[in-house]
Every structure is written in structure tokens, then in C-alpha cells.
């Protein structure tokens, strides 16, 4: 190493520097086709949910015995609670009680989206707390993870069905019953992320820089778990929407008068042979919604968390 301070070093040794144009994460996310498609579809659905009363709907619980089992597009009359007679076109037909399926489907968007988002938030919060504790406090790790294993051994739908059956169905019990079986998955994810990231040299460097445990946990570890958690959150949202619909469809979910897509289909099963649209129309809405959330999740995973994208 004779040539000390030789300027030729700098010129000649062109180190393979990473000079690819680097975009910020947000730029990559915005460019993703999946994110755009899923996001746009969801935006439309959110708009529908928010604007439900102004989309030519009537009260989704209102029924009129004179307008039962109408085929889509047929006009009929409905008696409101005040006794007024209302001319109404049944775009999606009416059910066997004489309720307007169009109104019920539109209002059903509200229930589905609300359940999906709230379940995702609840299980993320629960899972992050438990996962951080399990990943950082070694003696609690065993206990927490065994309980999580136990919950995961019971199929999610069975837990939800059983809990709802015990508590009598309402919006809050349905949400909690769906969230509980999702928590172990988040806990596992957070714990494994914590255990991996805390072995990273940059975390070890922070330890030797004298950073406190909370500072390392919230400053170094948690920010690096956000991407996978956002992705996991969208997938939980999709699963929650599906499970809520299944509960309603099986007749064990929200009370039948509440307009949910599952309830509409459950009601439509009886006369499926003659009026398949009663099942198919809410089915299409449900599929499109879940598809939109899943496509959004796929796009986020590919852009936010490429490592995970390779895994599944």
C-alpha cells in the first residue's frame, strides 16, 4: 500500500455504486397499477357507501307486501311508515318480504366496508402490542405464542360463529368476533419482524450508541415493520368482509333486517331457482369489494415489501 493519499485511487476505482434512479416509496406505490386499480374501485365503493341515501334508495328495512318477489327493473309501490304511498322502481327487484334489493345492496356497502376497516385496525393494534411484547420480553414470549398457537388451531370462522352465537349478534360483537381470530396472525408477523430486525447490525449499532430500549423499539424497529403491517392490514380487511358475509349468509350474523350483502343472499336462497339475481347481485358487489381490497393489498405488497412479495 505504497501510494498513500494518491488521488488516482478515487478516479480509478469506480466502485459499483448504486446509482439507479431511486424513487421514494410513495412514488413507487403511486405508480403501481394494482394500487391504482384497487384504490380506484375502493374509492367508488366508499363514495357509494357515503352517498347511499341520495342514490335513489328508499329505507332498506321498509317492506310492502304488495311488492314481493319483483324482478329487476319492475316498478311498484311502497307504503312508508307514515302511511304515504311511494312509487318506486325496483332496479334489482324485491325480496320475498317486498323490500327493495337495490336499496339494501347500496346500504350493505356501508356495513361491509365498516366491518372490514374496523376489524383490520383492531387486530393490527392488538397484534402489534402482543407482538412487540413477545418479541422483546423473552419470558412472556412463550406464554403469548402458545396462546396464539391455540387460537390459530381453531378455524377462524368457527371462533367467529361461536362467539357471535354466545354474545347475541350486533355490529360490535360481530366485529370483535371476527377480529379475535385475526390477532394471532398479526402477533406472529410482528414478533418475527422484531426478532429479525433486532439482529440487524444497525440495531446493534444503536445499542452500542447507548440508545434506550424504547428508543430502539419505536425509532428503529417499528418503522421497519410498517410496510408489512400495512399489507397485512389490507388482507385482514378483505378477510373480515368475507367472514362477515359468511356469518350473515349462514344466518348467524347480524340480524336479518340489517341490510348486509350476506343477509340479502341468505334471504334470496329460499327462492334461488326462480330469482337467482337476489343471490347474484349482492354476490357481485361482495366479490368486487373483496377483489378491490385484495388487489390493493397485492399492489402494496409488491411495492412496499418486495421481500414478502417473493415469499407469497
Amino acid at each position, binding site marked *: *500500500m505504497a501510494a498513500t493519499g494518491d488521488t488516482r485511487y*478515487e478516479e480509478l476505482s469506480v466502485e459499483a455504486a*448504486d446509482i439507479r434512479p431511486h424513487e421514494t416509496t410513495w412514488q413507487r406505490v403511486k405508480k403501481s397499477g394494482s394500487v391504482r386499480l384497487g384504490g380506484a374501485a375502493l374509492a367508488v365503493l366508499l363514495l357509494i357507501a357515503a352517498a347511499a341515501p341520495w342514490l335513489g334508495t328508499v329505507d332498506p328495512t321498509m317492506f310492502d307486501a304488495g311488492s314481493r318477489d319483483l324482478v329487476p327493473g319492475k316498478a311498484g309501490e311502497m307504503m312508508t311508515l307514515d302511511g304515504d304511498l311511494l312509487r318506486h322502481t325496483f332496479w334489482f327487484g324485491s325480496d320475498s318480504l317486498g323490500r327493495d334489493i337495490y336499496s339494501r345492496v347500496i346500504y350493505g356497502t356501508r356495513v361491509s366496508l365498516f366491518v372490514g376497516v374496523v376489524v383490520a385496525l383492531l387486530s393490527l393494534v392488538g397484534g402489534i402490542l402482543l407482538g412487540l411484547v413477545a418479541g422483546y420480553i423473552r419470558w412472556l414470549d412463550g406464554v403469548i405464542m402458545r396462546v396464539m398457537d391455540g387460537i390459530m388451531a381453531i378455524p377462524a370462522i368457527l371462533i367467529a360463529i361461536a362467539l357471535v352465537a354466545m354474545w347475541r349478534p350486533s355490529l360490535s360483537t360481530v366485529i370483535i368476533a371476527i377480529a379475535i381470530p385475526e390477532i394471532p396472525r398479526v402477533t406472529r408477523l410482528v414478533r418475527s419482524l422484531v426478532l429479525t430486525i433486532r439482529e440487524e447490525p*444497525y440495531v446493534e449499532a*444503536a445499542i452500542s450508541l447507548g440508545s434506550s430500549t424504547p428508543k430502539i423499539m419505536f425509532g428503529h424497529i417499528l418503522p421497519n415493520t410498517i410496510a408489512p403491517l400495512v399489507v397485512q392490514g389490507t388482507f385482514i380487511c378483505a378477510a373480515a368482509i368475507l367472514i362477515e358475509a359468511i356469518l350473515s349468509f349462514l344466518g348467524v350474523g347480524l340480524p336479518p333486517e340489517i341490510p348486509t350483502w350476506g343477509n340479502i343472499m341468505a334471504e334470496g336462497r329460499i327462492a334461488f331457482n326462480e330469482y337467482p339475481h337476489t343471490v347474484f347481485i349482492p354476490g357481485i358487489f361482495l366479490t368486487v369489494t373483496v377483489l378491490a381490497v385484495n388487489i390493493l393489498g397485492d399492489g402494496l405488497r409488491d411495492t412496499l415489501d418486495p421481500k414478502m412479495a417473493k415469499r407469497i
Partner: protein
Amino acid sequence: MTAAKSGTGPVLDVRGLTIALPTHSDRPEAVSEVSFSVERGEIVCLVGESGSGKSVIAQAVMGLLPDSLPLTVGQVLLEGEDIAHAGRDRLRQLRATRMSMVFQEPMTALNPVMRCGDQIDEVLREHTALGPAERRAKILDIIREVALPDPERIVMSYPHQLSGGQRQRIMIAMALVLEPALLIADEPTTALDVTTQAQILELIKTLQARHGMGVLFITHDFGVVAEIARRVAVLRLGRLVETGDKDAVLKRPRHDYTIMLMNSVPDFKPHGRPIAPDQPIVLQTKKLDKTYAERGWFSARRVVHAATDVSLEVRRGQTLGIVGESGSGKSTVARCIVRLIDPTGGEVYIHGEEIARRSHRALRPLRRKVQIVFQDPYRSLNPRRTVGEAIIEGPVNYGLSRSEAFERARRLMDLVRMDAAALERYPHQFSGGQRQRICIARALAMEPELLIADEAVSALDVSVQAQVLELLEEIRERLNLAMLFITHDLRVAAQVCDHVAVMSQGRVVEYGPANEVFVSPRHAYTQALFAAAPGRDFAFGQA
């Protein structure tokens, strides 16, 4: 197909080879107009730093280029046949029969779920019509030829049951079982320990001489080149800068780049810098122990001794090197001293204060004094924090205001020869060498008294390595730091250390001034280790 074609032409003749890179890369071509040849019975070394395109050339010859790297111009003549544009099936026929390849990572290059014998057998079943008994005989023969013990057992083993060196022998056996005319070895010893490396190099030389094949040997390690090459071709950024006989290129380089490279290769001689006497002791370890106990429900407790009875001291302004092969316990010692792991026994003193048993709270004031730089420059910095945030984290922990800390960070950027504008940017915008400078600045921001470099230059190219070593040396001198330098690279150790501790299997087997240890090693292990160092007596860049 096994009969060698007669003829006197080169085994491999690469003419004007050009391989394109995808658009938006840092340069338009991975390899540009490269021409060289490999004669029958000679070893040609293709050398270059990362990004030089040396492995791409190997893949091009084998016809294994990914679609993203198309061969655009040029010829690849294998025994006179142009295979640059040969069809898929023709290439498949030629692989393993006329040309073979051995890869860098013996740990991952073999299929982990298939027995070694079956993996060699696949070659025979694909390319020959031999019956099972003949194939088996041939497999056992080649296993004997690569000097693996107990061939019957080896055939039945899975790769994970063999050591790294043994796996590389299996790879070589697989490559040579059909006696190809050309063997391409792509960094075949880089992942191996020094002593194993020496054995594999010897094996390749022996087999090459016995079978008279041409070998294209790809490496970044000039010690290995000195050991094995007859001719050398030097690549830089996809272009051939110099070719010639080994001695001509390594001792009398003509091209500026080659001259610079040769000057960057550390000599295998201690630097001979005088050691200032009577400096205060900064770090002292006494009988440091670290054991890992594996707890099993049914099996007996397995205890692993990662470090045993390690007693060392480092004085101010001096550098102690810990050298050893992988698994020798050298990093364990470093991590115990920084208290990233808790030692099981013994004592660690920093300026006379015992820290091995302190609680993490009581340790805090002393953490400042010991800082560490890690091996992997890509994982040592939090990807979500700017360089500036990374550097001020420590000082702010110890009560400095953010503005003062940033002021210090700016001064440090100057010290590590980087632009202060770098503080605003994120780690991914820097190269490996630059990141390592940032990590050094981060450590120095704590104003430590002991700096530990844990294989801090091992992941860097030789020219970048020279720059970072130079920087560390300068910093040690200017700040009068005590330095603990952990490395597997004996040349680097010779270059920077005042004292050396040689570790093997968790124990320090030899410990003394670098001058003595390097010139006249006393312990048998040290002697063997030094003897195995490739090109140890070769004088680079000296005409």
C-alpha cells in the same frame, strides 16, 4: 462425446465479446469487446473488482446468461466451435461434457435435498448411456480422484453433512466426471477458509495438470492469482485493461488501473511501525468466556464454547488484530466487549473499569467509550433514516443538542472524506465504501477511546479496502485511538496491526507483537495458517 478433439487451437477463444446491460443501468454494456483465450493445459485468471463483468463472461461462455443480459456481438469458440449463437440443445449437450463450471458458494451450489452421489449421477444419466453399475463405478472413481475420504459414504451423504471444502470437492467431481476440455471456476475458493482454500487450489492445479484441460479461473483475490495463474486478464467495468503472463501483469503492470490495484494489495509483511511504549491500557480482557448451551427436552445438553480464556490488552494509540478462520470466536470476543452479548465468564476492563457484569443501566456511561464498525455496509445503517440522523443519534443520547451534534457530524464527514451534503441523504444512495465511511463517522461521533472494526473492510473491493484502511490508520493516529481489528485476512492484519492474537476454536493460540508473530510464528496452527495464505511470498507491483 468424451473423446477429446485433436487439434492445437485454444480450448476457449473469446473474440470481441459484448454483452448489453438493461436500459437505465449505470453503463450500456456489462462486457465490452473482450477478447482472450485459454490454451489446452493452462490456467488463465480473469481478475477484476465487483462490477467488472467477470462472472458475466463465465455465464456467457456456459450459455447461462439471463435474458436481461443479451450477448450482442462477438464469438465464443469452444475447441473451434462458435457457441455464442449455438442453440439451446447444443449448449446443453456441451455442458458437463466439453465445458464445466464450479461456483463460489459450495454451501448453496449443491441441491440440499439430493444425495451427493445422485447429483453426480445426474450428469452421467443425462449425457451417457452407461448402465447403473458402470455409472456407480465412475462416480466412486471421480470421488476418489478429488481425494474425498470414504467414497461409499460420501455417495450416500447429503450436502449438509459435508464441510465446505468437501462440498467444493463434490462440485469439482461433478464438473470433471466427463473429462471436459474446459473448466470454468468462478471464485471457487472465496467462501472457504484459508487452509481449505489452499487445498482446493492445489486440487485444481493437480487435476488440471493430470487431464491437460484449460481452466478459466475467475477471482478478485490477487493472492490466489499469484498462486495459480499462468496468464492473467484484468477487467475493469467490462473492459479488458491488461493481459499477459502472471509475472508481467502482477509485477510489472503497465496500465494505470492495474498499477493502482497492485499497490492496493496489502503485503504479507508486518508494517514495522515502531510501537510507542508506556501508553495507558484502554481495553483489557481477563479469561473471557462465552458458552452457548442448547437446551433439549430429550437430548443431552450441548454446550458450545464460542470463546475460552481470552486475555487481551490494547493500549492507547495501538492496534490489536484478532485473526482467525470462521468459527474461531473472534467476532464473539468483539461482541462481548461491546456487550452486544453477555460474556459467561471472565472480566472486561475499559480504562480499569470492569464492565462484563454491569447491568445495562450501569453500563450506559461506558458505552460511549467503545464503538464498533461492522462487516456488512448494507445492513449497518437503518434504511429509513438519513445519514445525519444516524450520526447524531449517539451524541444526542448523551446529552448533546441536535444542532451541536449536527455540527460535529459535519466535521466528521470532512474527516472521513465525504461531502457534508451526504448528511441529508439516505443510506441506499451510497456505495459500500461510502457507507463504511459513514459507519466510521457514526462511531467517531461518540468520541470513543476504543474503536472495534469487526471485519470492517472484508466486504469491500481491494482498492476501496485500501482507501478505508488508510482512513482508519489516519484516524487512529490523529485521535490517538486504541483499535481492535478483527479480520480473517492475514494481509490486512499484517498491514494494520501492532499486536496480533491468533484465534482457533475459541482460544487464543498465539499472541504477540505483529513483527514477531508474522516473521516467526511459533504455534503449529499459526504456521499452518500462514503457510496456507495464497501468494504469501509474491511481491506485487514490484519490478
